[in-house]
């Protein structure tokens, strides 16, 4: 039993050991020549190193290159012994372009193959049609055997269950295991030796140093020839391994290029954001992507805050370079855990207490030798006191290690960032394009915006908690519905006993925000809003904002070079669906092996396309900036909409859907139960069922009368009731 458990526990290690043994067998019986090559390479590298120090004379003998036999076994790319042959080839290559015959040969061949294609294409099309007909005849037997599985598919599923699936799962698990195991280095080293990688790499650096002093075409040619000859074991693997390996390497380059491009777009966006005003209001037609762009900017602003806090912390560190900052940070973190520090104000109190204790001699200030390293810093203009700097640092560190989101919004936003620490200082991985982050662990949801936090005058709840907002990124979607204009708030006044846009003081909060969110001159607060129309906002709120009129973004683009490869895969998948699977869905109710295979291929191809489209996709958006006073001066700013940021479950465009779903649920009915017209000519009864103003006007021009009469009657009744109440009250007072 114990042995079984032991085997189970170390099964992947055993697999790795078996693979190592197999690799060693390969090394002995197949790749033994590679080890001789390694000795040759070491000798050559050594000769090059000696060659550097040899005095250069006309008779200096270049380091001997091991003799390479000019046989096909010496490598796939065989270079001639004499470098003049290569030069001659290059000369001839150039001359070929100046000869008309080269063009004649090429175009006559091109025409020949085009003709061949033209001749064959009807046959190809015919074959395809025949195959399609054959498939229809063989596989598209109409049936309604819902959910039944054919015998071949059953057989395949059984084979897959006992062999393919366990093997694939085992291989995947082993791969995960080996990625973390140290045994991977042993495997890597053995195969690097087997494939002559070390023999290729070892002489490169010595040759580089050698050629710095003795560069000549001959020795360069000899070196390249030597290097190419050492590739023979790589080519021994065969095209079945080499081609996929090359494709994987090319793909890695494509991905690296795409990520670099997206990161530069993101950096550009951040530079644009850094020049923004404190309050911005985005407007645009429905579907122009206001909330989408606002969410992206909010997420990028969060990264800006993190980076800025880190940058300013470093400025503080440079003022007092020998202060034990790490101990100070750890003490702040301890206080945060003990809930003694929970805001900037409490952080200031903590430093004030520290100063008091230090002055009283009860705190060593983390053993800082202030007599040697000073407790003031002259910045060229004024002296900064150590404790003032510590206050700023405490606030910055509180902001930096803040485990949560700085975003306070009226719709949910998901931030993706990962805290990294080995027990000392803390780092954040805020890279939007690191797709390996753990979704659960790296998700931080925005804080619920209680509008009372930003109301400075009349609030729903006058509790002191509502005055706690110090810093953060405020994001308000549909802000025009919240801070409505004069027409929409006609019945409200600044004297109203309830909060409303005329008496809540939100715009006052916006004007004062800089005063409570600034550290070392940088304001850690910003407000983003969006809405349909700029004029729907009340004048005060609008005029302190920068208006951003959004234009419709460009067509979707992709940062991956040669994205047509993925697009083609997507087209093939759609083609399979259209030509085969849709018909299958229509005609057959059962499941067959043929369609199972097609479905699998279609899904693999589509995933290849769709995932990359999402990861590396972007669009170019532009916004016209205008001051809230609307004085007519406009600037157009380009911005990149990055799908990896906004479509990574950052927000939901249908964020209010729960409310509407609930209403629909309560209604107990749906579109299925709506009445239909009976003909294309509408009946009078059908018009009446529309409850439309124009319909009612047509039907009965006096349709408003009963409503007015009813309302007047209710008013009269209410008046009478009020009168009676007043009379009763007066009587009571009299009594």
């Amino acid at each position, binding site marked *: 039993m114990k042995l079984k458990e032991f085997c189970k526990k170390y099964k992947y290690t055993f697999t790795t050991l078996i693979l190592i043994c197999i690799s060693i067998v390969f090394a002995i019986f197949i790749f033994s020549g590679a080890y001789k090559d390694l000795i040759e390479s070491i000798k050559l590298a050594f000769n090059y190193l000696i060659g550097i120090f040899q005095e250069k004379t006309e008779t200096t003998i270049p380091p001997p290159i091991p003799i390479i036999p000019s046989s096909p076994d010496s490598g796939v790319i065989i270079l001639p012994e004499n470098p003049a042959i290569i030069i001659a080839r290059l000369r001839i290559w150039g*001359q*070929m372009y100046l000869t008309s015959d080269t063009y004649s040969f090429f175009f006559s061949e091109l025409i020949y193959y085009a003709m061949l294609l033209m001749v064959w294409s009807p046959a190809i099309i015919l074959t395809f049609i025949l195959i399609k007909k054959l498939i229809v005849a063989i596989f598209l037997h109409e049936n309604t055997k819902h959910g039944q599985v054919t015998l071949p598919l059953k057989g395949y599923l059984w084979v897959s269950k006992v062999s393919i699936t366990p093997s694939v799962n085992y291989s995947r698990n082993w791969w995960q295991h080996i990625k973390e195991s140290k045994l991977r280095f042993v495997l890597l080293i053995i195969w690097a030796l087997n494939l002559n990688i070390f023999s290729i790499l070892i002489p490169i650096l010595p040759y580089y140093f050698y050629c710095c002093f003795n560069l000549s075409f001959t020795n360069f040619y000899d070196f390249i020839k030597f290097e190419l000859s050492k590739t023979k074991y790589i080519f021994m693997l065969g095209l079945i391994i080499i081609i996929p390996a090359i494709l994987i390497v090319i793909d890695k380059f494509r991905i690296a290029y795409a990520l670099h491009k997206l990161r530069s777009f993101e950096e550009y966006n951040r530079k644009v954001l850094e020049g923004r005003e404190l309050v911005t209001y985005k407007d645009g037609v429905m579907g122009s992507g206001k909330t989408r762009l606002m969410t992206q900017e909010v997420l990028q602003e969060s990264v800006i805050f993190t980076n800025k806090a880190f940058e300013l912390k470093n400025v503080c560190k440079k003022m007092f370079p020998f202060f034990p900052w790490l101990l100070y940070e750890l003490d702040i973190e301890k206080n945060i855990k003990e809930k003694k520090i929970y805001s900037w104000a409490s952080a200031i109190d903590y430093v004030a207490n520290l100063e008091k204790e230090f002055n009283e001699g009860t705190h060593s200030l983390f053993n800082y030798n202030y007599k040697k390293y000073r407790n003031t810093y002259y910045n060229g203009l004024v002296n900064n006191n150590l404790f003032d700097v510590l206050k700023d640092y405490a606030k910055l560190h509180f902001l930096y290690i803040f485990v949560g989101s700085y975003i306070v919004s009226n719709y949910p936003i998901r931030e993706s960032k990962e805290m990294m620490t080995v027990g000392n200082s803390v780092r954040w991985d805020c890279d939007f394009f690191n797709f390996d982050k753990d979704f659960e662990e790296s998700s931080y949801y925005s804080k619920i915006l209680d509008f009372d936090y930003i109301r400075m005058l009349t609030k729903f709840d006058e509790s002191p908690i509502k005055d706690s907002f110090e810093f953060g990124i405020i994001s308000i979607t549909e802000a025009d519905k919240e801070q409505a204009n004069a027409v929409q708030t006609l019945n409200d006044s600044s004297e109203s006993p309830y909060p409303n846009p005329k008496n809540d003081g939100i715009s006052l909060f916006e004007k004062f925000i800089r005063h409570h969110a600034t550290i070392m001159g940088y304001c850690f607060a910003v407000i983003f809003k969006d809405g349909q129309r700029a004029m729907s906002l009340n004048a005060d709120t609008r005029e302190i904002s920068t208006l951003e009129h959004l234009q419709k973004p460009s067509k979707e683009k992709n940062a991956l070079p040669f994205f047509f490869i993925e697009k083609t895969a997507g087209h093939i998948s759609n083609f399979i669906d259209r030509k085969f699977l849709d018909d299958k869905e229509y005609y057959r109710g059962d499941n067959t092996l043929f369609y199972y295979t097609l479905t699998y291929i279609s899904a693999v191809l589509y995933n290849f396309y769709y995932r990359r489209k999402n990861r590396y996709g972007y669009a170019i958006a532009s916004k016209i900036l205008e001051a809230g006073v609307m004085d007519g001066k406009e600037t157009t700013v380009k911005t990149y909409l990055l799908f990896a940021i906004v479509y990574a479950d950052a927000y939901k465009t249908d964020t209010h859907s729960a409310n509407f779903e609930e209403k629909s649920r309560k209604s107990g009915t749906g579109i299925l139960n709506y009445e239909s017209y009976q003909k294309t000519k509408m009946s009078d009864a059908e018009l009446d069922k529309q409850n439309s103003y124009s319909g009612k006007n047509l039907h009965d021009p006096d349709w408003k009368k009963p409503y007015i009469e009813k309302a007047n009657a209710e008013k009269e009744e209410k008046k009478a009731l009020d009168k009676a109440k007043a009379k009763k009250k007066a009587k009571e007072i009299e009594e």
Partner: protein
Amino acid sequence: MLFKENFKKMLKITGIIIFIIFLAFIISTSVIALTTPKNINIDDFINCVYVSKDSEHTLKIVDNENIVLSAGKKMQKYSIKDIEQEILIINDKEQEFAIKLIDKSKIFCEKIKGYMYLVDKEKETNET
């Protein structure tokens, strides 16, 4: 607008096709110029006579060491300096030149900056 869109699309497709043809041309020419054709053996070319397109020049590979190149009525013998793979380096008073053996039917001569084609061996021998 629709015409403009379609025209743009057509232009793009034409551009892509031209680019592919251009790429294919560059690749095929470099393959011919820079690679060694399979089964090239100098012995198969001995005594073969090649003539340029304008029939101005005639070249005969006499043996492994010599070639004869004639321009009009002027005939000159050159010695082969080096033979490797499919390239012949020929000694010349002015400057060395190369001959590339493409296949049995044609070669490229650097001296005349063009292709030379195999002429009927017997006919040529009789003329000589």
